[in-house]
């Protein structure tokens, strides 16, 4: 009997300690320490500079970054959310926003934005929309990505083709890809990797199709299929390696090694392109070629506040600061991402003067927001397994896309139930 009480006592002690620790929002000395959850190690030095600037303006608050690698970020975050130990402020993406917002674990920001006149309108509209759910804003973007067309000038020169520019259409790309393909040297005109953000979605919208509209899948749509065929056609004709070959040697690696003359790529990778000597020397980038329409996909990360945070006031101060011009400029000078605040991208352009990076911003005019719903991951996970065969040169893109459309509709119906 006595032993049992002892055991209970031993178990209760840390419990009590945990409780007392939790009830305190502020630490000794009246200083509030915010935790800030991020996943990209490359951005840590730049973010630290932003945090330093913030702490200087707000002497009572300090911010500690919690870096979780991308591969375990969401698992860890979800676990921590259940236990109430999630960071006060953390990074959010389009895929997860509605899931988190609809479960009530994010702090609504609309009220704060209004009362503090946070300059949300200075960020791209298509991007801001991604972080609203049922009319309420839950996150404010910090950076953005669009997709551009990279090309290898040396390979173009050798084939005697003019470099791609804003006038290019899909036909121009096809002609060039055919010319540039050289099987003997294992060089392909294009590397059409099956990637939803960089290839599938831009092509679908470029063909006038859609991925998701009014809760319905667009994969069965004629024009969407035409967009997908833009890629599978190049694979079938041998102008691009099949997806089965790009599992081990990815599209961008082929481009860097001058085994592919063109590639569609997310702007966030520009720094890595710049780091490859050959590409720095004779690589180029321009806006996406026009299909039936002009389109690119925009995505970006946002800062959100945990609804379970006990330091919401300080957390909002930080998110508000991150949404402003100053934070954007510091971030831009770090040269890792394009900050989303209007007109602060100059530092990023200048960090890689060899490339015409302005094209990524020029495309904002017709950029389509990255599609998402309440449980985006479910229907996104259907895409690669269903489209894989068609992207490996085995044909049948039309029926694969229709099947995908049907299954995606079923998944979307499941979300509403």
């Amino acid at each position: 009997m006595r032993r049992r009480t002892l055991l209970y006592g031993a178990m209760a002690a840390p419990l009590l300690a945990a409780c007392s620790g939790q009830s305190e929002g502020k630490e000794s000395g009246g200083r509030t320490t915010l935790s800030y959850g991020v996943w990209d190690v490359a951005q840590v030095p730049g973010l630290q500079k932003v945090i330093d600037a913030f702490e200087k303006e707000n002497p009572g608050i300090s911010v500690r970054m919690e870096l979780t690698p991308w591969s375990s970020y969401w698992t860890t975050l979800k676990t921590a959310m259940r236990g109430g130990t999630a960071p006060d402020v953390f990074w959010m993406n389009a895929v997860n926003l509605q899931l988190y917002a609809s479960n009530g674990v994010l702090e609504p920001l609309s009220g704060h934005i209004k009362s503090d006149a946070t300059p949300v309108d200075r960020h791209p509209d298509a991007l801001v929309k991604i972080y609203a759910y049922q009319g309420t804003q839950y996150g404010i973007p910090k950076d953005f990505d669009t997709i551009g067309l990279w090309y290898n000038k040396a390979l173009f020169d050798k084939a005697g083709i003019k470099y791609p520019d804003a006038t290019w259409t899909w036909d121009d790309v096809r002609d060039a890809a055919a010319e540039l393909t050289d099987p003997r040297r294992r060089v392909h005109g294009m590397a059409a990797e099956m990637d939803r953000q960089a290839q599938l979605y831009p092509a679908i919208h470029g063909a006038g199709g859609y991925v998701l509209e009014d809760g319905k899948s667009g994969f069965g749509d004629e024009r969407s299929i035409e967009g997908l065929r833009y890629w599978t056609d190049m694979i079938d004709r041998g102008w691009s390696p099949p997806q089965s070959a790009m599992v081990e040697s990815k599209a961008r690696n082929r481009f860097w090694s001058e085994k592919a003359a063109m590639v569609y790529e997310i702007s966030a990778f520009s720094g890595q392109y710049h780091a490859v000597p050959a590409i720095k020397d004779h690589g180029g980038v321009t806006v996406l070629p026009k299909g039936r329409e002009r389109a690119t996909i925009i995505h970006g990360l946002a800062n959100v506040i945990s609804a379970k945070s006990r330091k919401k006031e300080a957390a909002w101060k930080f998110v508000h600061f991150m949404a402003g011009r100053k934070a954007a400029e510091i971030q831009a000078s770090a040269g890792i991402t394009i900050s989303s605040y209007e007109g602060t991208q100059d530092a990023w352009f200048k960090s890689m003067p060899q490339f015409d990076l302005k094209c990524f911003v020029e495309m904002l005019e017709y950029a389509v927001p990255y599609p998402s719903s309440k449980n985006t991951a479910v229907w996104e996970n259907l895409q690669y397994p269903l489209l894989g065969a068609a992207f490996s040169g085995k044909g049948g893109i039309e029926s694969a896309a229709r099947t995908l459309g049907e299954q995606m509709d079923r998944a979307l119906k499941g979300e509403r139930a």
Partner: protein
Amino acid sequence: MRESSVRPASRRRFNAGSVATHAALSLGALVMVFPFLWQLLTAAKSLAETAKVPPTFLPDTWNWSSFEEVFTALPFREMLFNSVFNTVGRTVGQLVFCSLAAYAFARMQFRGRNALFALFLSVLMVPSSLLVLPQYDIIQRLGLLNSAPALFLPGMFSAFGTFMLRQFFLTLPKELEEAARIDGAGPFRIFWSIMLPLVRPALAALAVITAMWSWNDLLWPLIVNTDPQKMPISAGLTSLEGQFETNYPVMMAGSLIASLPMLIVYVFLQRHFVQSVALSGSKS
């Protein structure tokens, strides 16, 4: 006397056979070591070279700076210490708890033994990720998140270790135990001073296996200890993995350095594999 009659014949066989044995073992060893070698070669490459198509085997230029970068990129020393703590905690825990239970299951009679053993075995059949969420809840309720015990607590209890040691205890002859019992030794004495030494090779094997698992465990440490200062090195290394780019040379350098202590532990424990257990007075 016996030696003189057997040796010459067997030596001739040995020489013929040992070449084949060495050939087979060397080939196998090469296959086993290859990825380790690959780590070393990758660590010596530049980041750009790791992205090349076609991939290169030998580095264009040998560059060892990754081995220094690891120490600036991570709180390497703290992480190493956490790994040691985690590994020792789990290994000692398993050796103690599993050997006790295994001995009881193998050599003692008590009501409900089979049912209990089957129940314990069922732990093996659960995919470990199934229990991550509730286990996390328990650790949190104990107020142990971001602490050293959080790392090793659930891992101290192992169905694998219990089952393995039970099998080894089962192979021991009964006579030893019975002789000791007649001499008046209590159950714990028999366990500790007679039976346990006899399964030393198994204990060493379990120690090596547990140590390796603990050293390399990833998901659990990442979930309970989010503070880099409290993370073991296995989890720490994954933070080198960026969203758009992974610095493979630094990662491989880090993993090579991190694997050295384990190699040393193994070489040290090898002794116990080499020596046979002397079973004097066994069946003859």
